[in-house]
């Protein structure tokens, strides 16, 4: 785009040039070229025509296989900063169910670094005619309410480009009418509103239908230019520190559930119970060391880390709510570190504290400190490992269980060579060293017993971070 052109007429806000997207053999979008400015534009096509894929490419959720998609002159996939000027409501119904509507929209505002997120969220929620003070969680929302809260998070940061994927499904006639009026209002304010729909009579209400090149029929209202090219996003930058606090909070929130708390409480109770049993045992040192080792590092730490670690990003990927993080101008590595920090800070302190208290109850000298160190290392290693597993595999929980059951618990009994490959043997050897009780798997040098778990945890984090930059959300 040349400078002269920019001055003559405003550049298109969204431009596709020969954009194609295929998944394996399936061609979703084939060589689409068009450019759109301010106003309401409708993307019309049957199911499976590639409308959603096109919108996702505009919002940086997917990378075009061929050609280019630029928004406000930038590639939304490569440059996350431009995402600050884009708002999107995806088609999927799943939301961050554990948040209330207000928290959900506030999160969007915070990640977009809006000046007053609370006020902005309130305004956006009122715009879509929901109640900002409704304390209910999103999981209780009806279809129509979900549609509207999705719209609220798309407009909370006053974006210039608003992409809405099937925003009218699930709304009743009155709500539809009001929604369409809202779109026109936004279009008249100089925003580029792109609405996809498969229902013909809906689209007719957006305005006169005009034909677009390449079998994309678009309905388009009058174009009003207000935004000038240099004020688009010049002041934006995608800095976010190493751990994004808002994403950290969301992951922590997603981790907390009744079932998990019960599991945590139950396993903590078992740890304490075993400690009391050890006090009364014939050989307290032997029993205490073994039960702290076999329970703490073989069951408690790995399974809690599995439940939380594999879910931290895995659940967001599986129910596709990662999109509500992805649409924000946040560096991807900050997402990985935030998730890792969230897992560690939820699991770590509790498990380590419970095990240390349990070790202290046994009354064996030197055991509390060794247990604290061993459990902390186990938690660190397994959290990193299962965080990466959760992102890599769909069936991460089952694969993780298989890993623990077969690799760590069953195969490591086959001999020392196998035992070396099991993560748990390293922290266990710290316990072994501390009390002198010989545990079958645990004979590692002191250095290795600290370095190996740390390295495994960090490797998991590094892999997660790398993998996130390549993730496409469908």
């Amino acid at each position: 785009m040349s400078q002269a052109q920019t001055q003559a007429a405003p550049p298109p806000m969204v431009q596709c040039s020969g954009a194609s997207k295929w998944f394996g053999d399936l061609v979703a979008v084939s060589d689409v070229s068009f450019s759109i400015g301010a106003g309401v534009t409708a993307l019309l096509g049957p199911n499976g025509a590639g409308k959603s894929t096109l919108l996702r490419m505009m919002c940086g959720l997917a990378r075009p296989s061929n050609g280019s998609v630029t928004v406000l002159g930038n590639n939304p996939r490569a440059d996350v900063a431009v995402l600050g000027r884009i708002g999107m409501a995806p088609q999927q119904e799943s939301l961050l169910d554990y948040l209330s509507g207000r928290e959900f929209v506030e999160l969007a505002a915070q990640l977009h670094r809006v000046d007053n997120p609370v006020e902005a969220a309130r305004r956006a929620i009122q715009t879509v005619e929901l109640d900002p003070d409704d304390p209910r969680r999103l999981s209780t929302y009806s279809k129509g309410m979900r549609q509207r809260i999705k719209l609220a998070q798309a407009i909370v940061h006053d974006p210039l480009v608003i992409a809405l994927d099937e925003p009218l499904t699930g709304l009743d006639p009155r709500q539809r009418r009001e929604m369409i009026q809202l779109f026109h209002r936004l279009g008249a304010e100089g925003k580029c509103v792109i609405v996809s729909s498969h229902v013909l009579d809906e689209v007719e209400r957006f305005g006169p239908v005009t034909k677009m090149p390449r079998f994309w029929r678009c309905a388009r209202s009058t174009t009003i230019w207000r935004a000038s090219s240099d004020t688009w996003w010049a002041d934006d930058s995608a800095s976010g520190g190493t751990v994004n606090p808002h994403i950290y909070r969301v992951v922590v929130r997603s981790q907390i559930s009744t079932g998990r708390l019960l599991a945590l409480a139950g396993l903590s109770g078992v740890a304490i119970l075993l400690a009391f049993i050890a006090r009364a045992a014939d050989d307290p040192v032997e029993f205490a060391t073994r039960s702290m080792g076999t329970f703490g590092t073989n069951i408690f730490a790995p399974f809690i880390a599995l439940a939380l670690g594999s879910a931290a990003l895995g659940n967001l990927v599986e129910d596709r709510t990662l999109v509500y993080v992805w649409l924000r101008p946040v560096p991807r590595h900050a997402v990985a570190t935030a998730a890792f920090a969230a897992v560690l800070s939820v699991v770590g302190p509790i498990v380590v504290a419970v095990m240390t208290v349990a070790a202290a109850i046994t009354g064996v000298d030197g055991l509390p400190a060794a247990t604290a160190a061993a459990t902390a290392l186990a938690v660190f290693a397994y959290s990193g490992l299962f965080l990466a597993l959760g992102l890599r595999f769909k069936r991460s929980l089952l694969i993780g269980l298989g890993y623990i059951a077969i690799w760590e618990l069953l195969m490591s009994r086959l001999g020392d060579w196998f035992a070396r490959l099991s993560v748990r043997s390293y922290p266990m050897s710290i316990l072994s060293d501390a009390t002198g009780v010989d545990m079958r798997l645990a004979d590692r040098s002191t250095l290795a017993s600290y370095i190996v778990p740390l390295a495994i945890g960090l490797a998991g984090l590094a892999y997660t971070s790398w993998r996130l930059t390549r993730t496409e959300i469908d």
Partner: protein
Amino acid sequence: MSDIVVSARGVHKSYGSNHVLQGLDCDVGRGITGLLGSNGAGKSTFMGLVLGLRPRQGGTLKVLGVDPDQSGPELRARLGYAPEHHDLPGDVQAADLVRHIAQLHGLPRRAATERASDALWQVGLGEERFRPIGTMSTGQRQRVKMAQALAHDPDLLLLDEPTDGLDPVQRDDMLALIRRVGREFGIDILLSSHLLEEVERVCDSVVILANGVVGHSGPLHQGDSAASGIKVELDSDPRALVAALVAHGATAATDGHILTVTGHDALPDLVRDLVADLGLGLRRLEPRRTTLEDVFIEASQ
């Protein structure tokens, strides 16, 4: 068989403090009946009661002459049900699923296999019947749901939002299929929808649910409900015309580019003259009909 398929008197249903149905009275006759209502009006809950999935808290309900709470299994063998959700087991072939459900409804294995295949042909999935459902589009899944409800030759078919998520072509096909099942196959159908237009297109009668009671119920007679007023569609901003109409004593409501004008004796002439005077482009001018949308909005209030 009597002409009343489902008969409800004072039916109550609540979940905790959430009173979904509060004294619902209606008679569903033979043919195709639409169950209309906005989201959360209790359509799915009512279908659940008809199926006997949950005991109701009050009132009487007779489905095909029996009480679903008392003879649930016998009744359900005679019903076909297509739920609202699109989830179906992804790794099962369509033909296997339909046969399995038909067998559960009492058909012997061989008959179930044949009829599953037939039903999938009838819904237009004949060529696709050995595909895993996970690889199918939303439209095809809706058809699979239809086929599994149909295969055991039920007396009454319950379809919960059968066109949800379909594009216009698929929706036309589905509505045509529903019409065919209702008219040619002679199976009575109760279908729920929040889209008025499709209920208008296929149903013989309608039950509108609003706030847990029946807001309106009765037969649908298409085309004979011309109300006063006309619809006007312009190709540009209608505000000038609205102002002019109001100045002449008419009332005009806008809906996008479409105006609904009422309250004047010689409306078509008035609109024609005003449009000409203002130099506007006129796209469409037609008498307004009382659509189901009007009935719906009235019933919801």
